[in-house]
C-alpha cells in the first residue's frame, strides 16, 4: 500500500514535471501562429464592418469580437526563449532583445482587444473606435517585431 502510494506520488510528480517543461520551440511557434490566424480571421470580419466594406451585423460582430478578445492573450505565452527559430516564423529576434517593450506592446493589444466585445454589443460607432484602437495596437508590434 505504502509502496503504491509512493509510486503514485512519484508518477504524479513526474507528470507535473512533464507538464511544467516548456513546450518545444516548434510547438510554441505553431500555437502562437494558430492563435494569430484565428485572431486575424475574426478581426478581419469586424474590421471590414468598421470600414463599411461589409454590412454591420451585431450578432456576427459580437461573435468575432468575443473570439478576438478571448484569443488575444494566447500568443503571449508562446514566445519563450529560443522560439525565434525551429519553424518558419516572421518573429524578429528583436523580440527577445527588447523583451520589455515587446511585452508592453503585447499587453496593449490584449487590453484593446478586451474592449471589443462590449463595443460590438453597443453600436457601429463604438465598434469602429475599438477596431481602430486594436488595429493600431496590432500594427505597433508588427512594425517593430514582425518581419515583412
Amino acid at each position, binding site marked *: 500500500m505504502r509502496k503504491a502510494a509512493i509510486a503514485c506520488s512519484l508518477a504524479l510528480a513526474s507528470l507535473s514535471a512533464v507538464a511544467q517543461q516548456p513546450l518545444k520551440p516548434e510547438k510554441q511557434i505553431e500555437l502562437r501562429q494558430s492563435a494569430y490566424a484565428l485572431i*486575424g480571421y475574426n*478581426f*478581419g470580419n469586424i*474590421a471590414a464592418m*468598421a*470600414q463599411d466594406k461589409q454590412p454591420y451585423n451585431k450578432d456576427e460582430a459580437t461573435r468575432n469580437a468575443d473570439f478576438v478578445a478571448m484569443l488575444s492573450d494566447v500568443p503571449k505565452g508562446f514566445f519563450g526563449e529560443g522560439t525565434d527559430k525551429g519553424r518558419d516564423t516572421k518573429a524578429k529576434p528583436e523580440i527577445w532583445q527588447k523583451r520589455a517593450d515587446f511585452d508592453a506592446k503585447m499587453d496593449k493589444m490584449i487590453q484593446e482587444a478586451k474592449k471589443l466585445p462590449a463595443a460590438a454589443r453597443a453600436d457601429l460607432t463604438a465598434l*469602429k473606435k475599438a*477596431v*481602430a*484602437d486594436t*488595429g*493600431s495596437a*496590432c*500594427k505597433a508590434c*508588427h512594425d517593430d517585431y514582425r518581419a*515583412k
Partner: protein
Amino acid sequence: MKPPSPLWDAPIRLFHWALVLLVIASFVTAKVGGEWMAWHLRSGYAILTLLLFRVVWGFVGSTTARFSSFLKAPKAALEYARGLMARQHVPSVGHNPLGGWMVLVMILILLVQVSTGLFADDEVSTQGPLSIFASAKLVSRVNQVHEVNQWIIVGAVVMHLVAISFYQWGLRSNLLRPMFDGGALPPGSAARRGSTILAAVIFVVASSAVYWLVVILPRSA
C-alpha cells in the same frame, strides 16, 4: 497673335503640384495609420490616376512634356553632368538631359509604389483592393517592396530638392517659378503646346480606368 507658349503647360503644372500634395499625404497617412489608412488608399488611387495621365501626356502633350523631347542618350546626360561639375552650365529648354532621366525614374518608382499598394495587405485591417486576387506569398513580397520603395521615393524627393537648390543658388537659375507661372519658351522655339481638351479627356479616361481597377474589378472576386 497667339500668346507665347509657356515652358510648362497647365496640365503639367497641375499634375506636378497635385502629385506633391498627394505624395506628402500618402506618406503622412501611412505613418499616422489607423483610420487614416482609408485616406492613404484614396491618395494612392489619385496618384495612380495622375501617373497614367502623365505617361499618356508624355506622348501626346506639349513638346516639353513629351518623353521624346527630354529623354536623351545616357551619354548626353553624363556630358551634361560633367558640365555641371565644371560649372559650365548650358541652360536647357524644358527638362535638361539629367532631369529628364529623373522624371522617368520618379514616374517608375511611384508606379511601383501604387501598383504594389494595390496588392498589399498589412494583415491587420488595411488591404489593397486587389490583394484578394494575390496569393499569400505574393502579398508578402509586395508588402516588402511597398515598405522599402517608400524610402527610395523619399530619397528621390530629397535629390529633387537638392538639385533645385543647386540650380537656384549654385547656378542662379530659378526652376521653381516656371513650375508655378508656367514660364515662357524662348522666342523662336519650335515647341508646340498640347491641347487642353485632350488633357481633360485623358484625365477622365485615366480616372475611369482607376475606378474600374479599385472599385469594379474587386467586386468580381
